């Protein structure tokens, strides 16, 4: 939960503990605290971001073409499909469970959509809705078997991994691969469709929106907190954070504008990330997910219906898997038998874990799906450009994946040895 990063500044109540190190006000205090955090290994996602920068640097060094706007578009565009699977998985991982079926469900969803809209000529948007509902129902069914019958989630979703793949093959059976028309959602998600038609203002508008809404909401919260007499973020910190976000957002917009603009599927992904983040951190439903992931028995005793949470979370995962499947299909404009690629499952889990979501439940953020996919896609972009043999490619992929997490792990180890598990 990001709340625990909120620092204590000039709290006027009596309960404050004299042993708590007060941060000096102003930017200086912020820097001091940052130094202390580095020493204590309490760095949030900084290590992974550093890992990402290192990956970019190494690949740019090896291949001058890597450092180009087209690579940016490549990463931004191709990470979305698997990123959506990963986003759904974050919900499941927060419960401390796993969903092995997301790859199969994504393949099935693409096939289902193709059969409905191409073979049966259904309105493509209606087909999209039916597909997403279908994904959610599949997830809910799996969640129900897990929550109510008590079959371990691993087994349920492993059965799903096989079963839904079978259903997909059966659906595609008579026709094999089905090419999707360049219209509707498939067009919207395709690599040729950019925000505001790729107009140069598009990226900057998005960046401005993000920075402004972050700054405004932080300031509003600061005001409420101040008037309620509870600790609040100092203005200097809000400015610093907004500035950092601005650098990232405008930087990304600039790079993407160098090529053709911000891909629409990235815009969709970001929008969904923001919504999911809001649900997880600002609603009591999200709070319950964290609680169940932290301690099932305590949640049950607190009156939370654990089964309802589980079923709904698997439904969410199923719906995201279905959407991810449509996004993946749109990258090849076709739904094929290889749609249920188990590699997608692996990459989706890896992304969430690399981004910092724990496999053991109760700890994580939706942004880990974004961060992890940035890492994975950046590696892939580089490896594809180098045109290596597959054996070397696999080896590099393995080593780089590991390296991307090692910094994070080392800092966590420091954290642990200073007593903060």
């Amino acid at each position: 939960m990001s709340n625990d990063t909120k620092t204590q500044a000039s709290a006027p109540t009596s309960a404050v503990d004299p042993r708590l190190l007060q941060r000096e006000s102003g930017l200086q205090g912020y820097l001091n605290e940052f130094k202390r955090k580095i020493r204590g290994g309490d760095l949030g996602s900084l290590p992974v971001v550093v890992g990402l920068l290192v990956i970019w640097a190494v690949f740019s060094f090896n291949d001058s073409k890597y450092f180009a706007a087209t690579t940016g578009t490549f990463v931004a565009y191709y990470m979305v499909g698997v990123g959506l699977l990963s986003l759904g998985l974050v919900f499941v991982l927060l419960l401390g469970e796993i969903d092995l079926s997301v790859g199969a469900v994504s393949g099935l969803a693409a096939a289902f959509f193709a059969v409905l809209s191409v073979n049966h000529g259904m309105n493509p948007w209606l087909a999209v809705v039916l597909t997403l509902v279908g994904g959610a129902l599949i997830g809910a069914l799996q969640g129900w078997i897990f929550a109510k019958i008590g079959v371990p989630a691993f087994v349920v979703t492993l059965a799903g991994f096989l079963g839904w793949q079978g259903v997909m093959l059966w659906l595609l059976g008579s026709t094999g691969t089905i090419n999707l028309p360049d219209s509707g959602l498939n067009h919207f998600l395709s690599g040729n469709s950019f925000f505001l038609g790729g107009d140069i203002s598009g990226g900057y508008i998005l960046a401005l929106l993000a920075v402004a809404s972050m700054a405004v909401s932080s300031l509003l919260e600061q005001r409420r907190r101040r008037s309620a007499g509870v600790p609040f973020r100092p203005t200097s910190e809000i400015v610093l954070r907004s500035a950092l976000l601005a650098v990232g957002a405008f930087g990304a917009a600039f790079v993407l504008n160098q090529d053709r603009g911000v891909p629409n599927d990235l815009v969709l992904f970001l929008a969904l990330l923001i919504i999911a983040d809001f649900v997880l951190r600002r609603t009591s439903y999200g709070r319950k997910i964290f609680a169940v992931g932290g301690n099932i028995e305590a949640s049950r005793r607190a009156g939370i219906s654990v089964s309802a949470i589980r079923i709904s979370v698997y439904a969410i995962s199923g719906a995201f898997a279905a959407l991810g499947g449509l996004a993946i299909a749109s990258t090849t404009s076709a739904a094929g038998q290889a749609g249920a690629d188990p590699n997608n499952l692996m990459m989706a889990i890896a992304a969430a874990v690399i981004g910092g979501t724990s496999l053991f439940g109760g700890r994580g953020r939706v942004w880990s799906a974004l961060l992890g996919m940035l890492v994975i896609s950046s590696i892939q972009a580089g490896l594809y450009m180098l045109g290596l043999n597959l054996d070397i490619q696999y080896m590099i992929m393995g080593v780089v994946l590991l390296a991307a997490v090692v910094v994070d792990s080392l800092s966590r180890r420091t954290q642990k040895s200073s007593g903060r598990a």
Partner: protein
Amino acid sequence: SSSSSSTSAAGGSQTIGLLLPENTTTRYEQFDKPLFEAKVKALAPSATIQYANAGGSAQTQAQQVQTMINAGVKVLVVDAQDAAQIKSSVQAAHDKGIKVVAYDRLAQGPVDAYVSFDNEKVGELQGQGLLNAMGPAATPSAKVVEIDGDSADPNAADFKKGFTTAVQGKVNIAYDASGLWKPDVAAQKATAAFNQLGAKNVAGVYSANDGMAAGIVTSMKNAGVTAPIGGQDAQLDAVQRIVAGTQAYTVYKAYKPEAEAAAQLAVDLLNGQSISSVATVTKTSLSGNSVPSDLLTPVLLTKTNIKDTVVADGLYQVSQICTADFAAACKAAGLQ
């Protein structure tokens, strides 16, 4: 090597992209890639080659095509993992003015040239090879076990179709299942088939490729099935089995002419020359595009023509085939 080539090419003006589909079969990185590279080097020393292997994923292949488009290649030689799914990638390349050569599998979309073996013909040869090996045992009631390739691979359907055409009515296909191109799966399915039919009743076994045949041969030995079996690809291990007599035949698709024809087409397209001298026929793909094509003829490889084919073509040295384990069999077969 190819990895340094992509950096050296100025603006990618002379770059050819080579995209191969997977790595579970030996041929791609072992033969196709080096043969293709050598020929291009000979024809156009200034051209560079960018290479990618999709590892069996159509989605990865799409990303690899995009990478090459970004890198500014002029010609793409694509062995599609999924001939239908590649369509939008082919279209994207075409839109950028990049010429596309379909390699081995006829990709959908606006392809400029196609070089391949006739896959149905491969299946037919396999059928013929099996009938030959069965000899008089090939009767309409003779039970044959058929292990096909992965149905996600469109070529598997072509092989099956050709095979069926060749053996229809001549033998009885008593068991038919997909081995997913995986040797261990094929071995288990074959064993299950033998259990189902009774080991003694099996008169012949069809394996869609040599990789699976390795597993099936083991199953046959375990179950005591003595019927003939064959595959395709002329893998080294398959040639060894043919020498040893545990496999009856394989289909040898001479990679060298295929790779060299592709290289010729690619260089010609790169230089803006006519390709009509190489691509002499026209094939229509499933997307309706007529593609100038060069279709090569596969060869049925048995114990008798090893020397004249794979050895003569320089694919394998005799010493590679005749390792210690196969020395005796090699002598008997007159290879050594």
